[in-house]
């Protein structure tokens, strides 16, 4: 709550008769005194912002950020961007949990459920959207889901989106067979020892829901889903844990089929591997955002977000990581490559993608993540 909101609340209480005149003036006076005393120090603190910490996935994405956003930002503001990386959202959350407020500032997070987790743990901030004019170019649907979680305000800006679909080796599995079997190809006995899968409980449960013909956002028979996860486990050669491992397993033909991240599969196709990609009905759609953590220097972070949302930066990053940017194609010309990326929606409505319902998935997180830990190990 800022000072203006506090004043308005006090005034309302005074006008409603809940607060006498003496107390009202006393509280306003005290607030004025506190403001007068702390402002010189506060100004010093604001002027002392010399760096902002950004954490992301590393690789080509970070390279694009450094070239198109961090460099120009530092040149314009004199504020250095400390560029860190993490292996996954869970690992990053553990690091943030162990840190002091303000130690970590901006993170390239995945999924609305992560946004909700951070918000529920009291780690969210409140962005002043007036300081981020480039937010106007973002697909409204992508911002709206975040607003719903944090009561109308934003603690992040949407940045890109993609899907976790089915990736398959065309030498061994035809496009027709994939269309016919969909997600059930991951539990096809015929492919025993040549199936892979991400060791992520959400993805495993989502695929289990598709394999048992259920709505992933409203699973009625979770036991059937766990049975499907067990079947997949017994047929799988390996649970992969990173995008690099996913690409290696497919490229080396250790596995013929797995679910995979659209951008990574596109990268394999670009390298010349004959890997097909298909989003089954109700396939897993997701979006990534640039999340500002509580305790961060807000104005400095907002300015950096504006640099990162600049169409030139967004497009360069999107072309580097092979995921469509959050920019609305109806408002911004996205160039030639982006319309060819998997999961790209030229209408900007994203009506063809199914996103995880954050309330539903986070409500089951504690139970399902633990159960998957056991199922994964043979139980």
């Amino acid at each position, binding site marked *: 709550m800022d000072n203006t909101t506090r004043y308005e609340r006090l005034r309302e209480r005074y006008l409603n008769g809940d607060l006498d005149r003496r107390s009202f003036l006393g509280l306003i006076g005290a607030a004025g005194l506190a403001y007068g005393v702390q402002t010189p120090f506060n100004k010093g603190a604001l002027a002392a912002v010399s760096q902002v910490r950004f954490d992301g996935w590393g690789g080509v994405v970070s390279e694009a950020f450094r070239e198109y956003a961090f460099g120009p930002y530092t040149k314009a503001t004199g504020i250095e961007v400390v560029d860190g990386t993490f292996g996954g959202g869970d690992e990053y959350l*553990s690091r943030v949990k162990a840190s002091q407020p303000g130690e970590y500032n901006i993170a390239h997070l995945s999924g609305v459920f992560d946004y909700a987790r951070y918000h529920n743990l009291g780690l969210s901030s409140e962005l002043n959207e007036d300081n981020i004019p480039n937010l106007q170019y973002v697909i409204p649907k992508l911002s709206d889901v975040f607003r719903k979680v944090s009561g109308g305000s934003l603690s992040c800006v949407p940045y890109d989106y993609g899907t976790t679909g089915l990736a398959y080796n065309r030498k061994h599995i035809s496009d027709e067979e994939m269309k016919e079997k969909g997600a059930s190809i991951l539990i096809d006995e015929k492919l025993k020892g040549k199936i892979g899968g991400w060791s992520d409980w959400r993805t495993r449960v989502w695929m289990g829901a598709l394999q048992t013909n259920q709505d992933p956002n409203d699973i009625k028979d979770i036991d059937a889903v766990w049975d499907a996860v067990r079947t997949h486990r017994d047929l799988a*050669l390996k649970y992969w844990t990173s995008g690099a491992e996913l690409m290696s397993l497919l490229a*080396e033909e*250790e596995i013929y089929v797995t679910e995979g991240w659209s951008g990574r599969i596109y990268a394999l196709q670009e390298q010349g591997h004959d890997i097909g990609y298909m989003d089954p009905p109700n396939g897993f759609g997701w979006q990534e955002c640039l999340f500002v953590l509580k305790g961060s220097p807000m104005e400095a972070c907002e300015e950096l977000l504006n640099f990162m949302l600049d169409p030139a930066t967004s497009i360069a990053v999107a072309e580097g990581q092979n995921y469509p940017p959050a920019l609305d194609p109806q408002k911004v010309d996205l160039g030639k490559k982006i319309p060819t990326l998997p999961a790209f929606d030229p209408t900007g409505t994203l009506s063809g993608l199914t996103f995880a319902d954050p309330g539903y998935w986070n409500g089951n997180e504690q139970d399902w993540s633990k159960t998957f*830990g056991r199922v994964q190990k043979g139980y």
Partner: protein
Amino acid sequence: MSVEAREARQPWILLSPALTAVALLLFVPLLFIVVYSFWLRTATGADQVGFFLDNWREALSDAFYRDILLYTLKIGVITTVVCALMGYPAAYFIARSKGNKAILLLLLMLPFWISYIIRTMSWINILGVSGALNSTLLAIGLIDEPIQMLYNQATVVLGLVHFLLPFMVLNVYVSLEGIDASLEDAACSLGATRWNSFVEVTLPLSLPGLAAGGLLCFVLGCGTYITPLVLGGPTDAMFANLVYEAIITQLDWPLGSALSLMLLAVLGALVLIYNKYLGMAQLMKGLG
């Protein structure tokens, strides 16, 4: 202050920086973990401060944790036995070689210059479907199709042996170096064959080194999580993987703390048993 009192204080003064470091970097964090293990994780992922026995009850009574712990100990035993069988002849060869010991020891230490993770991942390029071994076997016509060699219990043990073998060799080598070579000659001069002199004289005298190497291999092997993660199949997880999952994936630091203390207690008990019967001196020699 008397000379005796000053002399009695001197070791403590000299030891104080090391003791402070151990207290701050080992015992204080350990104390935090003990405290954490009695807290609870709430549905949102936040910790509930208090004194709850739920995590300990779950860790000690749930068959899931017991089974994975037993599996971990089993992998630790297999790895240690393989390291002993492979490491002893290598250590014997180095100890008895003349002139090139320094080079052989340098070669033994060479793997430590490369990251453990890189060394573990290198097996993918060797044993993979398109790896060096399959490619060679296909090229010379011994097989028609690549053999699936990766991502099973055997590759986990292989990765662990690759990581831990130098520890075993070093410990046995130090032990063998301390044995007077003339004892073997004396046994032979009394009518023993080379094999008899080895079995009756050298092997018993080198057992403390073998035990120290075994303890190191076992403890380090049981505590690893990288090797099963990189080289294991879907069901090859070890106990440290459970700790990782509880803390990182499930954000359940209290349960993760209880599980890590459980592993520490089991391995600590083994170290204490070792210390009671063989003493820590041999272990220090091997590490030195």
